[in-house]
């Protein structure tokens, strides 16, 4: 039975967690700033970070499909397993949908996304302020949904650790030389 996440999977998980927390916080902070150079800068950084998160989630999915994640503990009931899989699927879905809606909303609002100020990402939508406002609302709603699902994800991990006392949380923690397969 596969008990371990690869170091790459663990690294990508925490990198993503940190990145999403920062992008989410920045998004909340910046959305009603008055127009200033700072606002233009932080919007651009938010978009660049969002594109980065999108690329990272693709990398994560690719890694996940080529490196089977460890099985869930055999003590888990069938409905709990289903809930766990559904929760993870929803996390991935939102991690894909949120940057996509951000990109589309930028285009609809007439501001192309140019990755790090050098790589233009094509506009799929023409400028349309009403559509831009709609996409902004969808982008925000999906983000609050993601925050709720992440809260559930954290609560479930803590429940595994504190109540079920299994290794579900521990096996996703960065390793400190206590694992048998240190070179994986």
């Amino acid at each position: 039975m596969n008990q371990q996440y690869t170091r790459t999977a663990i690294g990508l998980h925490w990198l993503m967690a940190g990145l999403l927390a920062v992008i989410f916080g920045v998004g909340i902070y910046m959305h009603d700033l008055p127009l200033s150079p700072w606002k233009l800068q932080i919007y651009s950084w938010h978009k660049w970070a969002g594109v980065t998160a999108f690329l990272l989630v693709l990398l994560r999915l690719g890694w996940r499909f080529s490196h089977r994640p460890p099985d869930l503990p055999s003590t888990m009931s069938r409905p709990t397993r289903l809930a766990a899989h559904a929760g993870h699927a929803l996390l991935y879905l939102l991690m894909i949908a949120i940057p996509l809606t951000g990109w589309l909303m930028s285009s609809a609002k007439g501001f192309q996304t140019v990755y790090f100020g050098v790589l233009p990402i094509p506009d799929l939508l023409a400028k349309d302020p009403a559509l831009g406002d709609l996409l902004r609302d969808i982008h925000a709603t999906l983000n609050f949904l993601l925050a709720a699902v992440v809260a559930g994800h954290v609560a479930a991990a803590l429940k595994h650790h504190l109540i079920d006392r299994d290794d579900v949380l521990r096996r996703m923690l960065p390793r400190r030389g206590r694992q048998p397969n240190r070179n994986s």
Partner: protein
Amino acid sequence: MTQAIRSLLQTAAIAALALTPARAAELTTVRTDQSRLIFVYQQMGVPVEGAFTRFSAQLLFDPAAPNAAKAVLDLDLTSVDAGSPEANDELASKLWFDTKRFPTARFVAERVTALGDHRYELRGKITIKGRTRDLTTPVTFTPASDGGLFEGAFTLQRADFAIGEGIWADFGTVANEVQVKFRFVATAAK
């Protein structure tokens, strides 16, 4: 005999005068409803397009005598559309166009040089926000049955006109170069 020649010459002169308007070569009216004045600026490396929707022009242009052309363009700076309502409000402020004090910008043509093949070099003075600078721009003329189309593009440095002062003076977020593109439809009819 001399009387007959004089009479003939007079007739010819009157006929020539009468024919001048019929030639309809001198363009005097800019159809602002069909004309466009847009600009593109870089914001954090992102090209953003804007436009001025209200302007008026005085024009005298005879393709047969381009050097004698006259043109004055008055631009209503309050008609700016810089891509978002937020940006439009900001542009009206003192740091940008300061439209309370300087509601219009003006371009006055000073010299037209024919480059051949309906291409011209236009020199003149442009005044924005109380600051006047020399401006040279290429212009391409496309004749049409009842007039023609003038098109061209040039680059302004916004700092030359104190457009974007204070916190905006740094070019890191909003670049100094602003590309201006124009498309003026002109007719001979008043």
